[in-house]
């Protein structure tokens, strides 16, 4: 090796090490700055329900539950959509494939603050005037057993709340999920698919029994990618979730997620409250980190499989 090469390699290595440094740095900073909160509240910070700056009492449960609830809602809406979109794109004729997939990808390019703004000025009134009355009264969910519990205390919403946040989040994570699913579908060997069609399977049967089974791990990986996005999304949710420090009480109820709590309170917070917010950040970091671990595991499984077939 030339001497110059050694230096070049060292420089490149240093560049790559920045990623490790950043990750360790983020963990360390959040730990250091949240130390006060952990000392003060202990591990019970995680299931404390009060968030009261006046009394200096902070609990993470409303934000954690809100984060999980909005994520689950958005996934429930986005999974079938992303699956169907990916399916349609893989099965559509060659000339249509590229424009379609690029259009869906453009959904991911729109900044989240524009989603939030659209949600606030267009979706919230729409939910209030049409969707929520329709769900509650026309469909009569409110009168079903458990319906009131599902929709929130009285079943009449302000338009804000978890359902609205879920709809926006679903639209935002759809391109990420459908991109991964598209790759998985494309990975299925054409021979397998063609044999299924040859046996007289319909498209549904081919998809369900061949494509889905072949690429289930990749699809799970794609779902987790969407989940990671939905967990940490701040701006779009901030505009429409209503920002109340309360545990989610139903689809139409207002609440907050970890990210929106941070965005709302951090700029003015001092002392123990700031430390508690850093602790919330640490919780979010751990959640998103574990999701990344699972995603990598599943996607690595599919890529080794791809390697075998190549």
């Amino acid at each position, binding site marked *: 090796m030339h001497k110059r090469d050694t230096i070049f390699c060292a420089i490149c290595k240093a560049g790559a090490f920045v990623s490790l440094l950043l990750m360790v740095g983020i963990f360390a900073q959040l730990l250091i700055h949240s130390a006060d909160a952990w000392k003060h509240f202990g591990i019970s910070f995680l299931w404390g329900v009060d968030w009261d700056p006046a009394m200096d009492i902070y609990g993470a449960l409303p934000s954690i539950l809100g984060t999980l609830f909005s994520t689950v809602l958005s996934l429930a809406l986005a999974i079938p959509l992303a699956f169907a979109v990916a399916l349609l794109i893989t099965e559509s004729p060659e000339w249509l494939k590229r424009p379609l997939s690029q259009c869906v990808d453009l959904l991911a390019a729109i900044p989240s603050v524009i989603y939030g703004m*659209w949600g606030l000025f267009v979706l919230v009134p729409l939910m209030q005037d049409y969707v929520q009355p329709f769900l509650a009264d026309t469909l009569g969910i409110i009168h079903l057993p458990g319906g009131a519990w599902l929709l929130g205390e009285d079943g009449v919403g302000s338009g804000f709340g978890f359902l609205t946040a879920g709809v926006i989040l679903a639209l935002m994570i759809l391109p990420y999920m459908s991109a991964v699913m598209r790759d998985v579908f494309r990975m299925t060997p054409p021979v397998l698919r063609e044999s299924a069609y040859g046996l007289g399977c319909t498209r549904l049967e081919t998809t369900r029994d061949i494509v889905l089974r072949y690429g289930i791990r990749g699809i799970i990986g794609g779902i987790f990618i969407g989940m990671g996005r939905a967990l940490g999304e701040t701006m779009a949710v901030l505009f429409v979730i209503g920002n109340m420090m309360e545990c989610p009480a139903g689809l139409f109820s207002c609440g907050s997620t970890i990210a929106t709590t941070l965005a709302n309170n951090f700029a003015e917070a001092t002392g123990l409250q700031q430390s508690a917010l850093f602790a919330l950040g640490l919780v*979010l970091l751990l959640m998103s980190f574990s999701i990344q671990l699972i995603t990598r595991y599943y996607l690595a499984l599919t890529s080794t499989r791809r390697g075998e077939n190549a």
Partner: protein
Amino acid sequence: MTPRPVFFRKLSNHLLNLLALGSICAALGGMGWILCTVIQKGAPVLSWEFLTAPSKPYGEPGAGVGNALLGTLLMTLGATLLAVPPALAGGIYLAEFGKNSRLADLLRFCANVLMGLPSILVGLFVYAMLVVTTGHFSGMAGTVALAIIMFPVIMRTTEDMLLMVPDALRESALALGMSRMRATLCIVARSARNGLATGILLSLARVSGETAPLLFTALFADTWPGGFFTEPTASAPVLITEYTTNSPFESMHAMGWGTALIMAAFILIINIATRCIFHENKH
């Protein structure tokens, strides 16, 4: 095996087709709806004054969003300058030197985690690193936050693009007696330059719309970006947030829409243009 009636098989198949068609309509319709709203509400406020005058508190005449646009431009370009060199070097390391070693796998994993990290956590990190230590919110802190978001994206795209270059090219360069450095920079990186440019431009477009990491680093100000290292700096996404959530006035909402229109146009043009150019060159 029990026979399955053809009618139901066909019916469920048609339902699937319908679902697929409905889904893509929902996705594209949603995007179209958002863009239409932005254009419809944003277009009326656009004017030369709107683009060039600085933002002012409500009620003062001659308000614009010039300072926020300039702030976003400065911070995005600064972040690009900060993030691109180490990210390119890191990508080269992963693709050319690290390959599948355990160290490279670890670094690749870190980059992946960073890519999936909620951007608001980057804001927290930079707040703890730069705002607490220097004692004031600054445009510089915002720039660093955006650079941290860009870094892993560019590093991973660089790696992917370099891996797409056929090994024969590397081998022939080395066989001609080039050093690894020259072979990498002059041959491999050059043949992958379209992909590299696409990666950089797309991540630039992405961070120019990031809001969450700027909320507690660059903050907002009604002034032109003056003291970049010591003063809060305005940016377009934070301006939108301020004007729509913290203000009851119609005229401020309209200005928010106008800013959203400019941002959306900028980002979509970069996206579409890079995709088209890259697509043409690939064939």
